[in-house]
């Protein structure tokens, strides 16, 4: 008998507002272990706000949020959650650190104060770099890599603490189409081979829906949550959430090539 997949993220009646206007209202969402959920929505629909709430970076005014079955304010095992943020180049490109050093940071939270990297930890870093096929670059300065390569390194940093849930906020922004596709292939592999649960926010609805297992549509609250196939075959949703538009743009790109 198959064990019932457990719920990793549970959001109930969440409301978040900046000063006067609510960005998220009575939002409900649950993410099952092992799923690859794509979160889509127009600009200003609250995608990044929802991610920030889940990560505990901002506090919602109302509603309940649980990670791995415990309420967010009690949750403290952040090594189970990996996060790759919107701007790949949010850090100073000239920062004098190697790829290896950057990925090591992913272990710092787990190690805690007064503890140092041991051989085992260094192996974990190299393993994470191998997973994203960047192990050959371990000694390179992070600033010398291309945007796509940097984003893979940041994935490795998120993976090194062996998280159960990986959250990605617009990870392919500013990355060329080929690198982006390679990036999605990597995410699919992580989901299928390692059973990693993924929450992916992306504008690139057309490409993304080819990779994810589930789609959730957000505009202040969740308007649809189902399989990628249901989303693609529902004409209302795909037009509302820009599927067709993105799709057409991509077809054009293909023709142009």
């Amino acid at each position: 008998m198959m064990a019932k997949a457990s719920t990793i993220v549970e959001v109930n009646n969440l409301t978040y507002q900046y000063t006067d206007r609510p960005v998220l209202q009575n939002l409900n969402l649950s993410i099952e272990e092992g799923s690859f959920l794509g979160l889509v929505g127009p600009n200003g629909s609250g995608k990044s706000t929802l991610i920030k709430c889940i990560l505990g970076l901002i506090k919602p005014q109302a509603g309940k949020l649980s990670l791995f079955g415990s309420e967010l304010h009690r949750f403290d095992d952040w090594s189970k959650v990996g996060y790759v943020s919107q701007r790949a180049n949010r850090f100073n490109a000239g920062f004098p650190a190697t790829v290896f050093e950057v990925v090591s940071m992913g272990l710092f939270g787990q190690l805690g104060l007064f503890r140092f990297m041991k051989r085992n930890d260094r192996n974990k870093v190299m393993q994470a770099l191998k997973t994203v096929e960047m192990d050959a670059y371990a000694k390179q300065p992070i600033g010398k890599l291309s945007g796509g390569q940097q984003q893979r390194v940041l994935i490795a940093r998120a993976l090194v603490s062996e998280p159960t849930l990986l959250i990605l906020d617009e990870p392919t922004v500013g990355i060329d189409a080929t690198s982006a596709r390679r990036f999605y292939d990597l995410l699919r592999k992580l989901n299928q081979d390692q059973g990693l649960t993924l929450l992916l926010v992306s504008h690139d609805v057309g490409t993304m829906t080819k990779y994810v297992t589930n789609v959730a549509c957000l505009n202040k609250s969740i308007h649809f949550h189902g399989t990628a196939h249901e989303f693609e075959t529902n004409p209302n949703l795909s037009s509302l959430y820009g599927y067709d538009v993105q799709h057409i743009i991509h077809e054009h790109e293909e023709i142009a090539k």
Partner: protein
Amino acid sequence: MIDVFFQYDFLRNALIAGVLIGLIAPMLGVFLVVKRMSLVADALSHITLTGIALHLLLANFFAIFSLYDPIYMGMVFAVIGSLFINQLRTVYGHFKELAIPIILSAGVGLAVIFISLADGFNTDLYSYLFGSVAAVGSNDLMTIIIIAVIVLVLLFVFYKEWFFLSFDEEQAAISGLKGKWLELLFSILVALVIAASIRIVGILLVSALMTLPVASAMQWAKSFKQMFVYAAIFGQISVLSGIFLGFHLDLAPGGVIVVFAVIILLLSLLKNKIVKASLNRNVQNR
């Protein structure tokens, strides 16, 4: 030429103090520079002057103050200043650097008032501004040793946390690092190092010792760890040259230290230019 430094206590003090300062100032400076906060050192050194000036003023009225070294008051002001800078940086959010001119000018303004109330400049004040080989007493040395030990231990203990915070504050927060008090601790350390360095380098030039060796190190280091090694080496060369030449040629050591740091920086930039040029040539030859 060198043995004279072991004959006289005051010179030996200056030498030991110099070695320690040449180590801790550039090493803390690495974090300051990568956080793009190098000017904080300037602001804090000027607020240290305020403390020193206040002490000199109070010493005119209360005999008890002449028993103590003005540098302690300077340290207190530097620490308070660093707390203010930390606070102002959060108030101004997107304009974090505004904290620096605010604190710097407030510090100089107050210092000037205190100095004029205390009958203007004297030689003592001159040595605080530009550093002095003769100024390091055994009490000063003790203070510098204690501060150096604290800084080195904390650098070792919190290396990975400060590294993470300077690279990516948001990610560090998500991994559960307590950014606020780590930042606070760091600011206090910077304030203490500046106050400790002032005896040798002087108020006007202390920030150079925290930033110039780091700027040179950037041209050499192949990893973040190496930044500390190079910064410390370049810091040592500058400080030791400054103390030796400062003494033998009767120059303010602060000036010589900074000139050497600048020379090292120029040589480092030149080296990188040559390396790049030869790489290009190799590519073209292929």
